[in-house]
């Protein structure tokens, strides 16, 4: 199969406008005849469901949480980028586009990124109109701050809770459509399969997590907005329920999975405190606007930070990257922290942490000013560690946070299964090999509010033209999927083994972190590809899943997700092994410059790798989508 990106040719500045003009429209009176299924209610899912319903489509919206308002977008802290150039500091659509392509280490699709930069401004307008209380100046105008990988101030924010405010905006738009009767809401419902009939996505099979009932839902198109897979590492900044199941089930039904090895390890998270740890907590990148990162110059310096004089501290980001300093992109900052700790200069009890110090900023701007900017983050840090970050530097360490890889989609956000669209973090398209801070919220809302409402039209219109409008949740494909899902659940419940689901998840997480984490090499990846199937076999023979299928059963929910992670982790390692270069968050030790920076191989790897499932007993097939760069020149990424 040839991967056709359908990216418009011609001048990039006009391509989205021209593409939109060429897209077939669905007559307003006909829209109500279509049912669109949207899975996930984060920024991408909620904004898509609300907007599609506003247009007149009949929408069914699903989420695993008890309320759509609790999707994990709620936890995004720092902000959302837009090319408004309100600060008059030289920003433009082209600069946001350029920064994002460069930040992604030249592994994203140019046309998608340009469109993202263009609609970024509409997002801010839309959110303000919804009553999102962004931070403002005393003039009453919107405030901005800086984020990593940019030298302009283009990030809009609402304290350290920007994701919460944007999600509540999208959620309120969604609930308005629920009230209007145009959206049917299915909370506490988990998608277990995509149903493909005659080569088209026709619906989904779900489990009601309260009653355990397996159900089929038919629709004319299915949109997955089911987030990322950082929880494959067990410990990550993702919420506990974040999982790969929806995307992975789609992969097994024929959707290609692109660049699974592109994972983002975020540099500023609260370090692991002990074995009891269930997840890691992010400290927003915005803190690097005012915080200075350092470690002691001496190896093994155990003194309290306040006893280490200025001359014996190494502000390594400022030293290594004088022009971007503490605001280098995430992948660069994370590797630098790892390098400092590998040298034995890490701090804290484990030695796996570096300092993020606000003393200078407090001296310069006052404690009150810092509190106004980051109060809730400082509060959160103090709660978790029992230390006061106003007087003692924060200890931070990198942790899995975001996944740039995802289901392959074309310019219309359609996967390789016709009728299956993928939005937000669940797709692969806009961030290349590394996402810049404050760009995830931008992409989620761009896909949901301003892209899918247009690009879904031609597919739906085509169904009517082909006289293919009948949908039937009792069809044989639905029955088969239901039976398979039920059989899998029963199989898990009948193992009655001796190890818990979390025991397996932790073991997998350790394999992934050690071999497919911040740095990777061929030997480790091969070892992981060898070990994971054994762990999977152990799971299917020795896991303990308590309770029954027909009830509220959180163990069963987790077991299903971990079972998918146990397959998906292998695919990630395979992708990391075949990408014989370093780029962005994918750092292969064999491919680095003399200064230990990522060394790309543009000649052989300027492409997205999209994996096709070939059956449980066969290796998947790696397809390529060549990436062409007409507007951004490929160079060695430098933040010096």
């Amino acid at each position, binding site marked *: 199969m040839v991967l056709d990106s359908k990216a418009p040719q011609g001048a990039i500045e006009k391509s989205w406008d021209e593409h939109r003009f060429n897209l077939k429209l669905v007559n307003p009176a006909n829209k109500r005849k279509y049912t669109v299924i949207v899975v996930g209610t984060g920024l991408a899912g909620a904004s898509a469901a609300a907007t599609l319903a506003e247009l007149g489509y009949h929408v069914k919206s699903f989420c695993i949480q008890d309320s759509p308002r609790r999707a994990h977008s709620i936890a995004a802290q720092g902000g959302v980028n837009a090319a408004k150039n309100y600060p008059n500091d030289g920003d433009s659509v082209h600069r946001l586009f350029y920064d994002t392509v460069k930040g992604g280490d030249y592994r994203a699709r140019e046309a998608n990124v340009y469109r993202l930069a263009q609609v970024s401004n509409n997002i801010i307008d839309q959110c303000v109109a919804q009553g999102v209380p962004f931070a403002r100046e005393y003039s009453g105008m919107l405030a901005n701050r800086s984020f990593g990988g940019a030298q302009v101030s283009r990030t809009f924010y609402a304290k350290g809770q920007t994701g919460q405010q944007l999600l509540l905006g999208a959620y309120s738009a969604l609930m308005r459509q629920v*009230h209007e009767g145009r959206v049917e809401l299915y909370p506490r419902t988990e998608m277990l399969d995509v149903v493909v009939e005659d080569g088209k996505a026709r619906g989904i099979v779900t489990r009601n997590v309260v009653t355990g009932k397996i159900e089929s839902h038919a629709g004319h198109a299915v949109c997955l907005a089911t987030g990322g897979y950082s929880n494959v590492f067990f410990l990550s900044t993702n919420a506990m329920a974040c999982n790969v199941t929806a995307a992975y089930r789609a992969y097994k039904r024929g959707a290609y999975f692109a660049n699974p090895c592109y994972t983002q390890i975020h540099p500023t998270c609260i370090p692991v405190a002990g074995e009891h740890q269930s997840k890691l907590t992010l400290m927003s990148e915005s803190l690097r606007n005012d915080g200075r990162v350092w470690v002691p110059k001496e190896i093994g310096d155990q003194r309290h930070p306040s006893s280490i004089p200025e001359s014996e501290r190494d502000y390594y980001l400022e030293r290594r990257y004088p022009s971007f300093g503490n605001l280098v992109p995430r992948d660069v900052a994370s590797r630098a922290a790892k390098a400092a700790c590998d040298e034995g200069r890490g701090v804290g009890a484990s030695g796996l942490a570096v300092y993020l110090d606000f003393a200078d900023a407090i001296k310069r701007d006052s404690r009150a000013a810092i509190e106004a900017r980051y109060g809730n983050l400082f509060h959160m840090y103090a709660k*978790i560690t029992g230390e006061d970050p106003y007087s003692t530097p924060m200890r931070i360490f990198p942790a899995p946070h975001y996944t740039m890889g995802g289901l392959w989609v074309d310019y219309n956000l359609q996967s390789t299964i016709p009728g299956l669209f993928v939005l937000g973090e669940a797709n692969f398209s806009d961030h290349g090999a590394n996402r810049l801070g404050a760009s995830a919220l931008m992409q989620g809302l761009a896909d949901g509010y301003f892209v899918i409402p247009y690009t879904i039209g031609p597919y739906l219109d085509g169904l009517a033209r082909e006289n293919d409008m009948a949908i039937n949740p009792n069809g044989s494909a639905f029955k088969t999927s239901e039976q398979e899902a039920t059989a899998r659940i029963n199989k898990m419940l009948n193992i009655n083994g001796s190890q818990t689901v979390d025991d397996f998840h932790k073991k997998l997480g350790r394999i992934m972190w050690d071999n497919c984490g911040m740095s990777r090499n061929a030997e480790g990846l091969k070892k992981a590809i060898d070990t994971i199937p054994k762990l999977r076999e152990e799971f299917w023979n020795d896991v303990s899943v308590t309770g029954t299928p027909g009830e509220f059963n959180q163990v069963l929910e987790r077991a299903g997700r971990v079972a998918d992670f146990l397959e998906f982790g292998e695919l990630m390692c395979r992708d990391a092994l075949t990408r014989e270069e370093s780029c962005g968050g994918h750092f292969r030790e064999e491919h680095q410059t003399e200064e230990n920076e990522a060394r790309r191989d543009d000649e052989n790897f300027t492409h997205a790798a999209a994996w096709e499932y070939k059956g449980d007993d066969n290796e998947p097939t790696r397809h390529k989508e060549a990436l062409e760069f007409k507007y951004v020149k490929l160079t060695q990424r430098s933040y010096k």
Partner: protein
Amino acid sequence: MSSLNLTLRVWRQKGANGEGKFVDYQLSDVSTDSSFLEMMDLLNNQLESKGEEPVAFDHDCREGICGACSMFINGQPHGPERGTTACQLHMRSFQDGDTIVIEPWRARPFPVIKDLVVDRSAFDRIIAAGGYVSAKTGSAPDANAIPIPKPDADEAMDAATCIGCGACVAACKNASAMLFVSAKVSQFALLPQGRVERAARVRNMVEKMDAEGFGNCTNTGACEAECPKEISLANIARLNREWLRSNFVLG
């Protein structure tokens, strides 16, 4: 780091219609660095290892923002610390040998689903009744077209930080949802974008709140004291004002 030995007295209830009861569990070697929910993980992992059913509880982000966790700990929603969700409560707040009593939210509009899990969908229905600005996608003017005084924007933000956890209802002797409703009404009443629909909004949300069976406010202030986001009681005053105002506007 030190560790604790605890007695947990946990509410166990099979399903919505099942009868519930307290069950005692002994738990040893709980790290003081672990969060309250990580302590629950430890208990559940031990139960699962023995093939027993773990305690069901809602949780997700574990950073105090999603609003999923909903435990009544030693007689207080989210436990003893002010301005803190259960997931952000750490075991260093407890002493070795403590007995900790853990219950679900208890309010008629929040029926128990299982153990500590309750159904809070009444909150979603209140939002659906009017908790929004009806701004269709694509219809917005430039974001800086309407300047908003910073104090108004900040006050709206303070109200908007509500996480919808329901602690206010659980804390209230009347099971009133006034703090929750008032936070949303206030956010929009303070912003020019929200003022167009303010009268209909407050009317519809309050009617829905009553229909769902939440009680009335008698100014006890338990909601404000227990709110993990420290939403101010002043919002309820504003809600009352908005409601009165709506009677003049709508008749």
